[in-house]
């Protein structure tokens, strides 16, 4: 693992590269305009919980597993930076905290922490052998490939409708892996917390909590960045390149009818949730965003013996606070500058 200074620089570089490619994602509300209302309280609580668990002798690997996935932690880091800036946390303490969060990410990943090799390798070769079973792979024709990718698209957008921009809470894409001696690249798309009824009652309609899509592609030349975004060679397409796949829902294999049924249930739930969201004002959206952040550390908070839900002080602050209109207008160049000087 790199030394702390290198870790911070490599993290900034990896995030900076993504920000350059990313379009503004303001749905359902620009996150930078509301984080000042709760993120300092969130990071304070998170820090306390981590300290408490460490003081109780819990190993770092066990603490990391309370976040479930490395994607969840990595997506929390930049909002935490904003929270710590808002709380005027000294820069050394801020850096120490980021390095600790990155070390938790390292506990949940086998491969390079910053995906500098273009791979997001969560599984070690041995874990891959147990988690991805070649004998379960079924050949994909165009019709099946389209159905698989429609499901992936629905799952991804369902994740965004449930937890907005913090969809690292729900999804983790990892790979590309290879079976020994073979050339096909295997991308694993994991979707967790699909029945997040704590956030939206509509999620109760989904029968499964965890869906894993295992897809073997030929000729895509795929990379996966630190935020789990897969990128493929220009001109290549997922649908025509899928050679074989299988889909597990809570550990059971889904057949093509099951895939179509799940797609339909997720689509209905997504439309119900987004219709509800479209009727919310900015304060209600800010409160929901806060709920999502608190939900992302539910297991950690409960392990520390606390109530995972948002404290009353957050609701009160959102009720009386104002939108921050300064940060949302930053262009990519200024975002890069902000990243350079932030920590």
């Amino acid at each position, binding site marked *: 693992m790199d030394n702390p200074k290198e870790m911070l620089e490599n993290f900034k570089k990896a995030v900076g590269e993504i920000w350059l490619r990313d379009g503004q*994602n303001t749905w359902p509300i620009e996150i930078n305009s509301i984080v000042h209302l709760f993120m300092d309280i969130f990071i304070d609580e998170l820090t306390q919980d981590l300290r408490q668990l460490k003081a109780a002798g819990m190993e770092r690997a066990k603490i990391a597993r309370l976040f479930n996935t490395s994607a969840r932690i990595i997506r929390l880091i930049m909002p935490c930076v904003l929270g710590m800036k808002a709380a005027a946390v000294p820069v050394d303490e801020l850096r120490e905290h980021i390095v600790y969060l990155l070390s938790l990410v390292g506990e949940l990943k086998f491969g390079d922490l910053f995906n500098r090799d273009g791979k997001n390798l969560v599984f070690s070769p041995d874990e891959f052998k147990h988690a991805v079973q070649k004998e379960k792979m079924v050949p994909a024709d165009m019709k099946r490939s389209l159905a698989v990718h429609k499901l992936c698209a629905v799952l991804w*957008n369902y994740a965004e409708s449930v937890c907005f921009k913090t969809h690292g809470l729900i999804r983790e894409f990892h790979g590309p892996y290879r079976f020994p001696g073979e050339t096909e690249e295997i991308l694993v798309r994991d979707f967790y917390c699909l029945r997040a009824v704590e956030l939206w009652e509509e999620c109760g309609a989904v029968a499964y909590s965890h869906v894993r899509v295992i897809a073997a592609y030929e000729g895509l030349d795929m990379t996966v960045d630190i935020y789990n*975004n897969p990128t493929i060679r220009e001109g290549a397409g997922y649908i025509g390149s899928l050679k074989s796949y299988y889909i597990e829902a809570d550990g059971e294999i889904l057949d093509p009818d099951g895939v179509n049924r799940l797609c339909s249930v997720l689509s209905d739930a997504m439309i119900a949730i987004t*219709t509800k969201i479209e009727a919310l004002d900015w304060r209600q959206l800010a409160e929901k965003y806060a709920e999502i952040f608190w939900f992302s550390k539910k297991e950690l908070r409960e392990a520390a013996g606390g109530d995972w839900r948002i404290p009353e002080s957050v609701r009160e602050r959102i009720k009386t606070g104002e939108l921050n209109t300064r940060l949302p207008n930053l262009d990519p160049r200024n975002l890069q500058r902000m990243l350079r000087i932030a920590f």
Partner: protein
Amino acid sequence: MKEDTVSTQIAAGISVSPGRVTGPVKIVKNSGDVKKVSDGDIMVVSHSSPAFAIGVMNAAGLICEGGGMLTHICIVAKELGIPCLARVEKATELMGDNTTVTLDADTGTVYG
């Protein structure tokens, strides 16, 4: 699908997913609008919302006023292999519902 039925450039943007298609425009502004998108339509959006992905699944092409390579609705278009342009300024004003346009995502141009 007919090609080259229209030939005047009316807008331009950044190609996210290549390809060329001609079809009627369907402007989508909220979750309810996704139902009006059917096979062969070119979906035009001012912003991204997760529910819009359902419209993209029926559409033959996607035009976004904002967005970029990592905007979710654009990722969906790329995953499904349909032509998609992002950052097409004022697209929902320049194009009307049911007007026919040609989306050329190979060159980043919209003809109408």
